[in-house]
């Protein structure tokens, strides 16, 4: 079944932006090379069930500058701030847990939604349909029935 997947992002540029390529299994569905600084939105259509593979690149060692106290002064990264499946938002608390990340040159597997590295990321949609997926996450649509927020 064809499903709309939306990733809401926050992009930080430094000497250009990080490059992001997305694949539905092996089919390319999105490439972003010169992403603008600030919030962005990636919309793509996927075939459910699937595994989405994401490749991040164009991060260079000098893209991050840290001061003597360890504070980041400059960086190049992309943060996923929201996931919508057919416009149904996944709760903020779950987002970082859904991405399975492997940084280039490392065998460590982590779960994070802030990608300031070159590497591979995947998100597995293995339930029979998005509704079952949302239920399995126990992802409520909106917490407060009395104040349905149309901007949510």
């Amino acid at each position: 079944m064809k499903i709309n997947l939306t990733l809401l992002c926050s992009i930080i540029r430094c000497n250009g932006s990080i490059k992001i390529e997305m694949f539905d299994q092996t089919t390319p569905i999105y490439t972003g090379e010169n992403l603008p600084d600030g919030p962005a939105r990636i919309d793509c259509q996927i075939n459910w069930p699937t595994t989405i593979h994401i490749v991040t690149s164009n991060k260079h060692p000098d893209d991050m500058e840290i001061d003597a106290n360890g504070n980041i002064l400059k960086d190049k990264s992309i943060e996923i701030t929201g996931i919508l499946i057919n416009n149904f938002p996944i709760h903020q608390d779950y987002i970082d847990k859904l991405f399975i990340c492997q940084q280039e040159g490392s065998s460590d597997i982590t779960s994070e939604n802030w990608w300031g590295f070159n590497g591979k990321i995947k998100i597995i949609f293995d339930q029979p349909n998005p509704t079952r997926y949302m239920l399995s996450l126990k992802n409520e649509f909106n917490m407060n029935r009395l104040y349905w927020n149309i901007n949510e």
Partner: protein
Amino acid sequence: MDILFCSAPGTFSSRPTLAPAILKACASNAGFDAMAIDLNIEIRNQILKNPRKKLIREFFELQKIHEDIVDDIGDLLDYCADRIIRLNPRILGLSLLTQDSQFFTVWLCYHLKILNPNLKIVIGGSGIKNFIAESKLNFAELLQSKGYIDDYINGDGEYSIVEYLKNNLSHPGINSGNWEPIKDLNALHYPDFSDYNFSQYQEPGIPICDSRGCVRTCEFCDIIEHWKKYQYRTADNIFEEMQHQIKQHSITRFFFYNSLTNGNMKEFQKLLDLICDYNDKHPTAQISWDGYFIIRNKKQHPEEFWKKIKKSNGFLQLGIESVVEKVRVSLGKNFANEDIDYHLDMAKKYSVPLLLLLIVGYPTESRQDFEFTKQWFRDRHHYARNPINHVVFSLASILPNTKLERKQEEYGIVRGEIPTIWMTQTSDISTADRINYYYELNDLLTKLNMSSSNGGSSMDITAAELA
């Protein structure tokens, strides 16, 4: 099929929902191919058989997705989607009776649009708003903005659904807060229940809408703010519909879905006469009915009248609200406690079953009034089962757009997040106190052998909100 009308699950009533059958009749008579099913009862019956029914109810009321019911909810959604898609309608008309259907509706519409993106979905009914009299349409607008529904119809849908099917989206009530009430209830087509399976209901009966609005102006009530003018059908028109439905379904039990059956005493008396006459002629298949009923004084409801109610097999739902006379009269129910006692005596004498509706902890009630209420029931323990069949308690709510809301400063009401959470500056009674008071009343009535329950989901939602 042009349109399939479904009740949205979540009402948990054991009785048939009326709206799909009304709308089917409107659409069919305008030349559209329509069908009506009561998904509410189908889902209710499935939930009742489920050992995890309490957790499933929590999903409906609070959207709580407990680990143990993930598959149950998925199965219920699949059942509804499969039922709808198999019938292959071009449009789905989903009717929400109350806001208790909202969470399930979100999930169902989401699921349906995934399985069949071409299915057009229109929602309607008083449940598309959180409260019937409020002007905000956030729920419907949100679903529309997300693409889970295509359109919504606000207010009376009898004429607007036909205009919608004709693609006249500028008709009042379609995707708009402004709507036009039906001008003449007698001119409407009789509801078409031909697609309903009446064997699904614990107590099979035919719902009838005999009136809209109310003759009273109780300050807590939002119905009178929605239907500002009381409208009624003539006795002849109602009785003709009863005969039509008996002929169609061989069912002689009728449920009046209204605010009151005896708003127009002339028509009501005439209807009783027609039913009594029918029952004389059909002693083995008599008509019986139930409906909301306002208490009046002895002169207006003389003993002869009670004989007719008995002969017509009436079951009366009495909105007493408070047994403290000064509280009740001031909120807008202008009858005396002796009138209540008279109705209890008459109903006992003629074995007319009664359901009493009471508000727990009205803003003008004191702790002494709570004690008075308990004593009132103790003093009337001999009415248990006959005629008091059941007592329904509802937590006092300050509903949007009601006279009570407009009087909140006068009463010194300080409101919380939801309508049942409030306090007054003149007393120390909290919402938790009122919930405890409900449990005390419930326990007392159990001891008095009177059956009681809380009305709707407000008690659970309030308790969850307080927690």
